[in-house]
């Protein structure tokens, strides 16, 4: 599992919002989508997804409705609310700024100082 990275605390919510922003998904679908868009690099414990999902619903960032999945099973589908969309934008910007800053900090060479 050397190609997989541990999730940083707080990033799970961001990943869920991102995954759902590409179209309504049920819980298992969200896991698959995160695996797909991260090219299987990020590992999420299956059960740990749900407390996070419920938290996001409670914060009004996601809304949920029952529907039928591609496997023809009943499943609960999540989609972004407008508040969730706004939050995703803010968090993405914040993450990018942080990532750039960390990357440039780590790329620093002795002669640049």
């Amino acid at each position, binding site marked *: 599992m050397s190609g997989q990275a541990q999730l940083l605390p707080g990033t799970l919510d961001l990943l869920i919002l991102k995954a759902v922003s590409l179209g309504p998904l*049920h819980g*298992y*679908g969200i896991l698959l989508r995160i695996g797909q868009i991260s090219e299987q690099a990020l590992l999420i414990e*299956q059960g740990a997804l*749900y407390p996070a999902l419920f938290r996001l*619903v*409670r914060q*009004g960032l996601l809304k949920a409705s029952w529907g039928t999945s591609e496997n023809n099973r009943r*499943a*609960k589908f999540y989609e972004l609310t407008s508040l969730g969309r706004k939050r995703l934008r803010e968090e993405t910007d914040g993450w990018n700024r942080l990532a750039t800053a960390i990357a440039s900090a780590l790329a620093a060479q002795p002669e640049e100082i």
Partner: protein
Amino acid sequence: MKLLAYFRSVAAKFFRPSEIEGDMEEELRSHIQHRADDLERSGLDRAEAERRARIEFGGHARFKEESREALGGNFIETLSQDVRLAVRMLRKSPSFTVAAVLTLALAIGANAVVFGVLNGLILRPLNVPQPESLWGIERGSGKAVNQSYPDYLDLRDRNRSFDGLAAYNVTSVGLDTGNNPSGSWILETTGNYFDVLRIQPYLGRFFHASDEHGPNSAPYIVLTYAYWQAHFQDDRGVVGRVVRLNKHPFTILGVAPPEFRGSLLFAVPDFWVPIVNQEQVEGSYVLNARGNRGILMVLGHLKAGVTPAQAISDLNSIGAYLERNYPKDDGQMTFSLARPGLSGDWLGAPIRAFLTGLMLLAGLILVAACANLGSLFAARAADRSREVALRLALGSGRVRILRGLFSEAVLISLAGGAAGLWGSVALLHGLSVWRPLPTAPLNVAVNPDAKVYGVALLLSLASGFLFGAVPVRQVLHTDPYEIVKSGSRTTGGRRITARDLLLVVQIAICAVLVTSSMVAVRGLARSLDSKFGFEPRNATLVETALNMAGYSGDSVPAMQKRMIEALGKIPGVKSVGSVDRPPLYYGANGSNVFTDNTADLRPSNAAAEAMTYNISPEYLEAAGTALLAGRAFTWHDDKNAPRVAVINQEFARKIFGSATNAVGKYYKMPDGTRIQVVGIAEDGKYEHLAEDPEPAMFLPIQQSPSTQTVLVLRSEGDPERLTAAIHRTMRDLDAGLPFDIRTWSQELDSALLGPRMATISLGVLGAMGAMLSITGIFGMAAYSVSKRLKELGIRMALGAQRKEVLQAALGRALKLLAFGSAAGLILGILASRVLAFIVYQATPRDPLVLTGVVLAMACFGLLATWIPAQRALSLEPSTLLREE
């Protein structure tokens, strides 16, 4: 917006918890199905795929719980879950649950009852508007509440601190509503009484100050609500009706509201009558005599903005004026204020001290019960350490486990509290209608109110958390891996555990309770044994009300003599005498006395205040009061003969220096009359059983007449047999004369009421303490035997003797018992000082009490360790060792 969403979700959780729960369950199942679908597609069969999917999903229960928390509004949900779990756990061990609930029910019940009485007598003021500004006036350093009527008038008219001052008296009258005349207890009050207390009539009108125009000018009656209900059947037409009071016509003006029971908390009058009609009510009018302090109490509301201290200095300046102007009658006219409900501090202070002490003891009972349950809970938690460890290993939070334990504790305490409260409410209602004495209007309204319920609830919750907290440390320190591995606790050790400490505390508390109840019982026994100065056995009292039958002046002594002679002729009666008011009766008459060479007869020069008894010549013989020297009276000691008296030993010691040569000497009364001592009688008890020796004098009725007449009949054998003959004789003498027959022993019940109540309440608490110590020691001993069965088995297999086995099994419990008892005994000795107020010669440094306590505690120890000891001795080592 977010807040709104939160509340909506909380509301949804609250109102539809099972729906949400089902929703979540279905979603998680759907997840696992989808995963299984994928795994199936990769080649696994369906069953294997589903199994794998479940394993991959991880701790189902934990995620569900976290999800639940994430959903918010889970408080109610988890609470009901905790409660359900707790109920299930408790149902698994019903005997433990029942024992715990019963223990708490008793402890909380005891507290609720004591608090109810405390609430009724001390915390709850008189039921009048603005009770906080209502004060009664006390006089002198002795805190006497009684005043004379002229002094009252001066206080009322000269003070600038009160909105008005009223005064009242308690007395009994005969009321004839047309049927059979019956005796009633009433309050004689000043005209302004209802206006000063700010009471409005329920029906009709009250009398007012404007109705008073001198003696017998206000023949009016105001009924209490209860008396109106009981005797006039709620008849609203009663207003304006004329009834006969001691044969005088009185008009019923109105009815007081139901919540106003008069101005004493512990007495219920039947009605109120203006005090200016004293002559018709009591048979004599003494309101003009400044030296006659027959007014029971003066009370009133302070003016707005006047502090009690200002009022006291105002009253004291009036007092100084009184001392100056009436030196013959008024000495030491300094005043203080007290709450009027318990008739001032004279009675209020000991009642308050005793009830506070009782509340303290009841609180100790609860603490002991909590210690008891705490150690039981700790033992249970230790037994369940495997379960706790498993739950921890499976991912349950420690907080969750603790919450479970607390739920059990609180559930038990609430159940116990409810049961205890139920019992105590019944008891308090019973107490509220109880009239402890057939001869007095004593009654205390201690009906439980919101405060009592609140206190019971609070105590239940507090005790639940108290004993629930005992095993907390244990749970927090549980190491799941160790316990699951080794299969048992590793906390062997001989160090002193919290449980040991709890047991010692509990036993000490119980020993305190046992000590104080023994002190009280012993005190009561002693006061029953003590010399009364008369012989109540085989004596009958006939209390007559000559004033109610219209006797006055010279007809009184004539009738007294006729009654004495007629009753003396009844076969079986040895002697008959009369007295105005027997000793140990409600209240007592006292008078200042002076040495013969005192010229200035102001009260401050008095040599003593002596109890005064006006008796017929045969009284001392009939009462069984021993005459130690000199002679008794004869019928020749009348108005025309020189004034004489029989005094008791204490009187002789105080006035004449010694009891031996007082006969023949003289002393003076406040009016200057010289009286010669003709006899010395033994000392006795006059006001109450716990009093110090008091001086007393007996005066012949012909020289100091009194309409109050109680006849004392000394008989051979059972005095009850005489009742019919006495009835017949009295009817023959005067069919219209109300009278009342009691044995003297019955009469003494009133004097013994206080010590009896104290002994009963302390006895109950002591019994509860004893029970708690037995269950506590039993729990500890049984637990330690069951925990060490294996060790004991090995010891026995290795050839240990019975003694050694017992030593190993119970030595610790007995050591703790001894230690706790010793501590409790010492504390109990200190605590018993509080009892000295009520109980006669309450001293715990009494060898009988000390041995009693030690023996009792040892007995409890034996009793409680008997069953565990039997169990330890009956061990079969071979089977025991095979089992594990």
